[in-house]
């Protein structure tokens, strides 16, 4: 992530890079901010202690956000841009994640044990593309709610299968427990290398026990190295998806979302474009799953194939802005931020540890209706981020349906793509039989 930006001043690159960066100043600034975040976090928490810890998500949390945020972006790629709600998108996340683990453990035919992580990530993503092709063949005969439900149904079948299929976990007895890379002892340790394959200098090992330096610069903490390496891959994926959206192909996707009937009438075989978009989104969804497992080292059905994995991508997409690509990523930061702000003690900062340290005990122990403030906090806030996230989500659906980034772009941006929501609403408004209504009397 930091590679491109930190070295722009060097003059070793052709001039178009400078031009590109000037054109995408905002993007560059955001990338730099993300790149320096772990250092900033360390610095700020060092300076301000719990205050900073309370507000800022930890680097560890940011690592999770990178993978899940990429997943939310891939969900938005198909759902936000073509309008087809991929309610079973978790299937691709799961495929990517499981493929890496099983591939590493040598349980997959053809794939030799201990195949390099980057290769597994790519092949797994291609497997997801094939799966998307098959699912799409069935599902794109339907639209609207039916499309959402059939994709959900297929993903749930995979979830049930991953919960029960003994093949997934030859070493342990219960597939619901999930599977860890390198867990059967005859397989070597899981040492995922992220970077350019076959170029030693451009690879780092990620994971809690990975490298402590990146590009020859020591940062002293494998977590930060993993964060930067995974972040670079996520950035690359984001740029690729963004490029596709701004290509002629991407414009057809948007045309389909806006008005599929008219897109057909002007000569597009929309089925091919929908399939293409679905397969591309599956690719990046699987990459997200692979990156997730790259750091975690293990995966289980509930955090891969389960419906709520898609559900929270959807929540993130709405809060961030459906059809803004980057919005869902920020939506995820927001979600996880709320979660961590209200997290339990022992898992980083948050509201309660902060208050406990900073408020006088007398206030915390004030008794209101048989409950002290501290008790109330621990009962009704700490660890219940989802409750507040849910309420925020409802407020967004009702009052800010185009999300944070959608609103920002509407207000300040030039190429706003996020306004279809308002149009969708308007389209429905005249009356349920707007068709004949639009021209009054008619045949």
């Amino acid at each position: 992530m930091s590679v491109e930006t930190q070295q722009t001043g060097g003059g070793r690159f052709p001039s178009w890079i400078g031009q590109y960066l000037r054109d995408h100043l905002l993007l560059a600034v955001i990338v730099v901010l993300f790149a320096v975040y772990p250092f900033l976090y360390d610095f700020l928490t060092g300076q301000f202690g719990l205050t900073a810890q309370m507000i800022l998500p930890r680097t560890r949390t940011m690592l999770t956000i990178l993978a899940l945020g990429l997943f939310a972006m891939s969900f938005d790629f198909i759902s936000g841009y073509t309008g087809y709600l991929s309610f079973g998108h978790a299937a691709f996340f799961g495929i990517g994640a499981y493929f890496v683990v099983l591939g590493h453990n040598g349980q997959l035919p053809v794939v030799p044990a201990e195949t390099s992580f980057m290769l597994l990530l790519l092949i797994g993503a291609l497997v997801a593309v094939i799966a998307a092709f098959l699912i799409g063949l069935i599902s794109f005969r339907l639209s609207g709610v039916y499309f959402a439900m059939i994709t959900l149904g297929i993903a749930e079948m995979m979830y049930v299968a991953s919960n029960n299929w003994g093949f997934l976990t030859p070493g342990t007895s219960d597939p619901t427990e999930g599977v860890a890379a390198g867990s059967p002892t005859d397989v070597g340790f899981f040492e995922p290398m992220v970077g350019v394959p076959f170029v030693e200098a451009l690879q780092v090992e990620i994971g809690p026990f990975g490298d402590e330096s990146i590009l020859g610069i020591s940062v002293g903490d494998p977590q930060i190295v993993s964060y930067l390496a995974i972040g670079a891959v996520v950035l690359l994926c984001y740029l690729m998806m963004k490029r596709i959206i701004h290509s002629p192909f991407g414009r057809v996707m948007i045309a389909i979302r806006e008005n599929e009937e008219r897109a057909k009438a002007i000569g597009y075989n929309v089925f091919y474009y929908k399939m293409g978009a679905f397969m591309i989104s599956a690719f990046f969804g699987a990459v997200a799953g692979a990156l997730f497992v790259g750091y975690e080292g293990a995966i289980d059905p509930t955090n891969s194939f389960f419906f709520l994995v898609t559900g929270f991508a959807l929540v993130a997409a709405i809060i961030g802005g459906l059809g803004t690509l980057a919005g869902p990523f920020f939506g995820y930061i927001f979600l996880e931020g709320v979660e961590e702000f209200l997290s339990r003690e022992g898992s980083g900062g948050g509201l309660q540890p902060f208050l406990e340290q900073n408020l006088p005990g007398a206030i915390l122990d004030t008794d209101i209706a048989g409950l002290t403030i501290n008790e109330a906090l621990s009962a009704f806030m700490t660890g219940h981020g989802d409750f507040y996230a849910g309420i925020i989500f409802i407020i967004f659906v009702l009052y800010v349906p185009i999300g944070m980034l959608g609103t920002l772009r509407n207000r300040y941006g030039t190429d706003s793509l996020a306004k279809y929501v308002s149009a969708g609403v308007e389209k429905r408004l005249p009356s349920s039989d707007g068709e004949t209504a639009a021209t009054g009397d008619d045949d």
Partner: protein
Amino acid sequence: MLRTNRLTKRFGGITATDEVTFELGDKLTSIIGPNGAGKTTFFNLLTGALTPTEGTVELKKDGGWVDITGMDTHETAQMGIHRSYQITNVFPTTSVLENVRVAAQAHGSNSVRFWRNVNNFDEHYEEAYGILDRVGLADKAEVPAENLSHGEKRQLEVGIALAGDPDVLLLDEPNAGVSSEDIDAVKAIIEDVATDHAVLLVEHNMDIVMDVSERIVVLNQGAVIADDKPENIQGDPDVQEAYLGGYEAGDLEARRQDTAASQGSGTEPDGGGLA
């Protein structure tokens, strides 16, 4: 340019299009007819949105006739038949320019390119700007389509149909819902596009039909009942009968007296009509 042979479409027991044999040439031709005459069904058969029960649709391509019966809408569009819609049917939140540009892009193979920025395909932008000039929307190029006035949306509707250089343009009530002040603008566009396209127009506004058409085809209950120059259509008794008839004045009075005389129950309708 486009011809049909005994084109028929039945929905259950109703014949919406009844053995229509028709050829569209260079003359600006209008289709008119009372409610339910089957004009929109006929359009849908031509573009492939509906599959005919019987009969064929053929398009003149490079001097020969090509059978396009049963093709899908995107295929007929690729063949060169484009249409506008009676109900505004544009891409609402994209810019006016993009609405036309994406239509222009549909022809050729550039649309499958997903690795190059769309801004590198100048030809589509040039075509789109040209069309916006033609339909009088050049100064609205950056406005999202949903923010146009109704009249401007109708202009855009025609603009989208124009993109990709079609041979045949089917315009379905380009004036629908246009307020009185804006009608002239749309009329001028119809006359302009007819100079270099074969145009088939469905329209309710008789002033416009009589004014712009060189030929008028009258449909009633799915069948062609008249096909002539506008001046001959006006006042044609068959046409007036189709619009206003189907009932003999004084009939009710006569029946009422009958019923009163016989004291019977004359009101027992059986079957008939729309099933």
